[in-house]
């Protein structure tokens, strides 16, 4: 019975001109989207490689210089793009791509692509994730809205009932007929993406298991939609009504809920404005040691403490340059201040995430979106991860420079110039994104929510199949 229903439904779908057109449109859109993203990706990565080597060159060839001047001169950390961004661009467009690493200051990532685009960019881009997250669910609605209602409208329902058909077998047949084309389209696209990514050279770390996981997440999302659409179709009397109700679900899930969630999250747990944040940091910085100010109270305290520790009575007798030492201590204090304030931002974001997870109860789109971005290394967490790595590198760089200053010169010797070869000794900035396992355990709650949606929608569908 299941296979018979399946065959009949599939035939019907294949014969329907609208369905063929819709599938062709979706596939060609996906093709274009993948092509655009691949080009964009290559472009960005070429620029990344170029900028990275050029910046290192600028750093290495500073010439003779006081290490602290070099610290102020600073360097840049550039954020690479990862292979799976081909599938999901995530928040990449809205997050900055380069961080300036200098003395005394932790800088935000600068230059997001969205800031350099027109207002039209806010409508969204033609990227694979747009098709996968918005258009394919619409396709599911288009394919399945009249799955049951047509039997009612054509009068075949009475015929079927007289055959003594069991509800769930009938349902499974219809379900399979709806699932298979969606599965096919998605599998082809992911396979293509995989082959494309596997063949491109120097394409970062591409792993098939990440792609597979991404595929599974999307399949779960689609299955939830299939269940909902079939549920609506079996509960309504007319095809038109079924379509409109399914559409309402789509609007709420994909459009309204995320936007409402973002509004609620912002009102409840707002970020400070850029200027406020800077002012707060400045206030805290002033309360501690400033490496440039030897006259402050904190500097005097440090002086006494170091003199006592080394058992000498003048800074000149210390085995190192106290200026460099104080500079490093000041740096450590400032790093702590930044750590505190950035942690506050993270805390706010964690709270915001809770709002998103809460609203996932009415929208399976939300957990899917977050999981997809996370696996593709294009989510906000990866961005934080990168920013933290850059900050760690900045702190290490400052220590390297201050130590050089402290060890190689004597107190008051501001005219000291480090050798031109010094700069090459600083190891280059390297960043590796978290592995798949880490990502999945970090996002376990999103996985859980998606699982609940999956089970609940299946349960409800099977439960109602008895009373069609």
């Amino acid at each position, binding site marked *: 019975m299941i296979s018979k229903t399946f065959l009949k439904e599939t035939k019907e779908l294949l014969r329907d001109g609208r369905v063929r057109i819709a599938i062709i449109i979706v596939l060609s859109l996906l093709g274009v989207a993948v092509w655009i993203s691949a080009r964009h990706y290559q472009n960005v990565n070429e620029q990344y490689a170029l900028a990275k080597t050029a910046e290192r060159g*600028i750093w290495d060839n500073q010439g003779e210089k006081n290490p602290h001047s070099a610290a102020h001169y600073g360097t840049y950390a550039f954020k690479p793009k990862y292979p799976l961004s081909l599938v999901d661009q995530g928040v990449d467009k809205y997050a900055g791509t380069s961080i300036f690493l200098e003395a005394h200051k932790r800088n935000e990532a600068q230059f997001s692509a969205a800031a350099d685009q027109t207002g039209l960019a806010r409508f969204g881009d033609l990227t694979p994730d747009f098709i996968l997250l918005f258009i394919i669910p619409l396709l599911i609605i288009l394919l399945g809205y009249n799955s049951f209602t047509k039997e009612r409208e054509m009068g075949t329902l009475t015929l079927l009932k007289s055959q003594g058909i069991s509800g769930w077998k009938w349902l499974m047949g219809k379900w399979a007929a709806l699932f298979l084309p969606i599965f096919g389209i998605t599998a082809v696209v992911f396979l293509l993406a995989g082959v494309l990514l596997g063949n491109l050279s120097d394409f970062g770390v591409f792993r098939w298991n990440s792609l597979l996981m991404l595929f599974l997440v999307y399949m779960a999302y689609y299955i939830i939609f299939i269940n909902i659409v079939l549920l609506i179709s079996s509960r309504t009397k007319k095809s038109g009504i079924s379509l*409109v109700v399914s559409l309402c679900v789509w609007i709420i899930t994909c459009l309204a809920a995320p936007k409402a969630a973002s509004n609620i*999250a912002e009102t409840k747990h707002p*970020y400070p404005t850029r200027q406020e944040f800077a002012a707060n940091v400045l206030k805290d910085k002033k309360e501690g040691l400033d490496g440039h100010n030897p006259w402050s109270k904190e500097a005097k305290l440090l002086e006494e403490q170091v003199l006592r520790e080394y058992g000498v009575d003048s800074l000149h007798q210390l085995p190192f340059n106290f200026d460099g030492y104080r500079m490093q201590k000041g740096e450590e204090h400032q790093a702590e201040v930044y750590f505190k304030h950035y942690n506050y931002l993270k805390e706010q974001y964690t709270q915001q995430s809770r709002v998103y997870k809460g609203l996932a109860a009415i929208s399976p789109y939300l957990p899917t979106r977050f999981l997809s971005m996370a696996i593709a290394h294009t*989510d906000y967490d990866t961005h934080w991860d990168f920013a933290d790595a850059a900050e760690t590198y900045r702190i290490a760089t400052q220590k390297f420079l201050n130590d050089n200053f402290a060890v190689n010169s004597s107190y008051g010797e501001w005219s000291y110039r480090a050798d031109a070869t010094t700069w090459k000794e600083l190891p280059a900035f390297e960043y590796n994104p978290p592995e798949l396992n880490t990502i999945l355990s970090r996002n376990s709650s999103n996985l859980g929510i998606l699982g609940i949606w999956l089970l609940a929608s299946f349960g409800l569908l099977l439960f109602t199949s008895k009373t069609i």
Partner: protein
Amino acid sequence: MLSYNFKYELKLLLRSRWIQLLSIVLLLLFGFSVYNGMQKVEKRQNDIAAAQQEVKENDAMMLKLLDSVERGMEVSASPWTIPTSPMAVGNYHPRVAAMETQSMSFVSTGQADLFTHYVKPTVAGDDFALNFAEMTSPVQLLFGSFDLAFVIIYLLPLLIIAFSYNVLSSEKESGSLRLLAAQPIGIQNWVLQKLGLRFFWLSVLVIAALIIVFLSLGLNPFAGTTLFFGLLGLILVYMLFWFALAFLVNLWVGSSAKNAVAMLGLWVVFVLLVPSVLNQLGNTIYPMPSRTLMINEMRSLKAEVTKKQDEILDNFLRDHPEYALNDTTQSRGFYHRYMASQKLVKEELSPVVNAYEEQLQKQQHWIGRFKWISPAIIAQESLNHMAGTSTQDYENFRKQVIAFAGTWREHFMPFLYNNQNFSQKDYPNLPSFTYIQKSQSRLSAILLLLGMAIGLFGLGFLVSKKGKHVSILNQG
């Protein structure tokens, strides 16, 4: 016939509870979105007010310090922050350059979540270091905001689709079409009247819901009458466009479900696909130069300039002999060299920086040329203009701030190069910033949308007249 239709349609809509349902849905959507918009506006106003207040307090402290110094008293501040030095005033006591809210700012978030609404340019900082990006979680930027513009552009058409997809087909499906055909009225006219009446009722509901929401949230819609009527006009013509589309689809396509699918497809095309494709094409045809490569360029230039600081200062002073004349001490310190080189860097880099503005303008121009393809783009753009949150508004703000940063810098130059102290009597002369909103005409967008709607209606008549022999009765 019209009065007959009118009465019958109203009864039908009331009995099928469409009117009741729509009123509730509209009230909820408008209420939530306007409330969201107002909260954003309120936060923005509070942030700006707090920043202004802070400057005021700082100024009071600065004046006190100046007073003490001028009386020859000992002060406890760090030596380089004492405001007798003009550079200290220019760096530690910047003014707030704020973009105030407009009366309609709550309508559309536009680019408001992306860009900051106030900056404090200092003398030492360079223009590229002025960061106009706001600190927002990128997830929020990705999802966008549930504002009135979203309700109007995305959701209202869907309501119209649900409201009008089966005007003709339901008659056919329930068998009453044959009865109708016996009436002395053409089918197109009948569909037009029926859709016209639905448009009328939906308009009444939309206007009433908007006014109720505005009043209950403490906004007076009639305070800025032209603005409010501009908003209403835009909403109505945008709705008219979708009704015109519904008219066309109703005449053209067959069954209810097919109609709904066709209209939904059009919605996806106009609201989702066309904007993103246009944006992508704009980016491809006029690509933004790489920001990362710009950083490289800026870095090399600055490195070069730093090496030649003394030479640059000499050249600068040769160009400005007045400084050499007025200053008797002729002492030259860090800032003399720094400001002169900074000026040079700025001049050298301006073509690089302008390239971004130019490219953005070209993209904007490109969109302007093709925006008529999608009414959603027209509506979104004019709502953004109305709210003062469009790309152009922020570009404007950016330009005004950069000009102000220049004024601020220039204001301290004579002090610096004349080695003249800043004093209390100089305080009132400090430049201040006022944002000037450039208003844009809304009428053209409304007329464009109206033209599109009328065109579609005309098309509907033309097509159905031509194909008259393929009678509507025999279809499907």
